[in-house]
């Protein structure tokens, strides 16, 4: 993994995932270490994402590294019309690693090919967000004590939701069973279903909640976004059909945990927050350890 950019979840192998999980567990035990002393890391957020940026910066600061960069492109040279290539080539001279978020799909892959330093993709439009996926894996391992043979239930926007696609790809190494619950318009795309079929992985599709959630080890909820619907009436019809409420969790397994990439709008009712099965806030904290693991392994410090 040393000196290798992390752009897409498929850039890493199963062994790489396991290594990151192992390292993240070490950082969780001792998150403050001076491993990044003297290192400069550029955080280039061409579109704002406070949550992701703070998670990365916290990870870097706790390891004694320095951060340069910007929080949105309004304050950068991008506004003056500079090309991404020029920005990246310049910044690469000032730092040891680039972390970037950009609204244009494929921009991170392109940046990794023009930069002389490794690049971590912190989200390129609707395409990829691999550090989110690795923190999801870490959260699953931590709550279930294993990754193999789990029953994973995905709810919400399965068509455009990049987090569910990445998680599906990553979990496919671990013999899962999937249940997909979404409105017809936002169903899991055929290419992912075909991918599972070729690997002989079982999946089931549902349009509403039924008994199957009593089997789930993980319920992974994503936001159904209004802007995905061309017809606002369609949105009104489905928006309340996919809200997870506390009383729906009565018959679920004791080890079951609810994950959500956050931010949440209304797809998990606030009455779930107090339930011990709600894991989404701790999941966000895991992101710091996972990002510490990724940064130090790319810089060859671990």
């Amino acid at each position: 993994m040393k000196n290798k950019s992390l752009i897409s979840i498929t850039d890493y192998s199963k062994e790489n995932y396991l290594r990151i999980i192992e390292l993240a567990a070490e950082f969780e035990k001792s998150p403050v270490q001076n491993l990044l002393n003297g290192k400069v890391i550029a955080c280039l957020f061409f579109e704002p994402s406070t949550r992701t940026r703070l998670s990365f910066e916290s990870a870097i600061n706790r390891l004694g590294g320095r951060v340069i960069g910007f929080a949105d492109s309004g304050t950068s040279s991008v506004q003056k019309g500079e090309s991404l290539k020029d920005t990246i080539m310049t910044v690469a001279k000032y730092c040891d690693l680039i972390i970037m978020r950009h609204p244009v799909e494929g921009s991170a892959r392109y940046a990794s090919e023009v930069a002389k330093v490794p690049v971590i993709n912190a989200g390129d439009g609707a395409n990829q967000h691999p550090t989110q996926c690795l923190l999801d894996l870490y959260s699953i391992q931590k709550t279930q004590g294993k990754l193999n043979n789990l029953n994973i239930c995905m709810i919400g926007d399965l068509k455009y939701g990049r987090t569910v696609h990445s998680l599906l790809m990553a979990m496919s190494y671990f013999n899962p069973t999937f249940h997909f619950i979404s409105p017809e318009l936002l169903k899991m795309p055929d290419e992912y279903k075909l991918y599972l079929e070729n690997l002989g992985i079982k999946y089931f599709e549902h349009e509403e909640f039924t008994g199957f959630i009593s089997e789930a080890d993980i319920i992974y909820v994503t936001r159904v976004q209004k802007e995905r619907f061309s017809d606002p009436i369609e949105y009104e019809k489905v928006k309340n059909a996919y809200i997870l409420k506390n009383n729906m969790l009565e018959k679920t397994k004791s080890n079951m945990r609810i994950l959500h990439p956050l931010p949440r709008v209304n797809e998990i009712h606030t009455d779930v927050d107090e339930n011990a099965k709600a894991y989404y806030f701790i999941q966000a904290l895991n992101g710091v350890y996972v990002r510490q693991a990724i940064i130090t392994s790319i810089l060859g410090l671990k």
Partner: protein
Amino acid sequence: MKELTELKVSAIKDGTVIDHIPAKLVFKVVSILTLEKIETQVTIGINLKSQKLGTKGIIKISDKFFKQNEINKIALIAPAAKINIIKGYEVVEKKIVEVPDEIVGIAKCMNPKCITNFESVTTKFKVVDKKKISLKCHFCEKITLKEHIEIL
């Protein structure tokens, strides 16, 4: 019939004949194979009668022999092209176009949000389905299907 068509474009002694190119795409083939930079004699025939294509184009390039991977670059626009290698006015070898594993700089990514449609980035695709011709963008990872392929 075949001989008559051949006669319309002068024969070459040594070189390559690319036949059965869709008539409208002859100049695309010229540019993909960068034939405009070639120093030897190039003869181009357009709108020749063809039983298979209706009309077709043909290109004859003297003293030039292509590697298979060069020829494969035209797979997206002239998949049915026939390549004849000529030595001493005789066809000594016939080649067909094979769909390559990777397509660089020929097609446009259909995803309007892709970086290749924002900056001058050379497009690059993995051919994920050689029969149906679907291309996966190296950058945005979206699939461009055959019916949506636009040649740059």
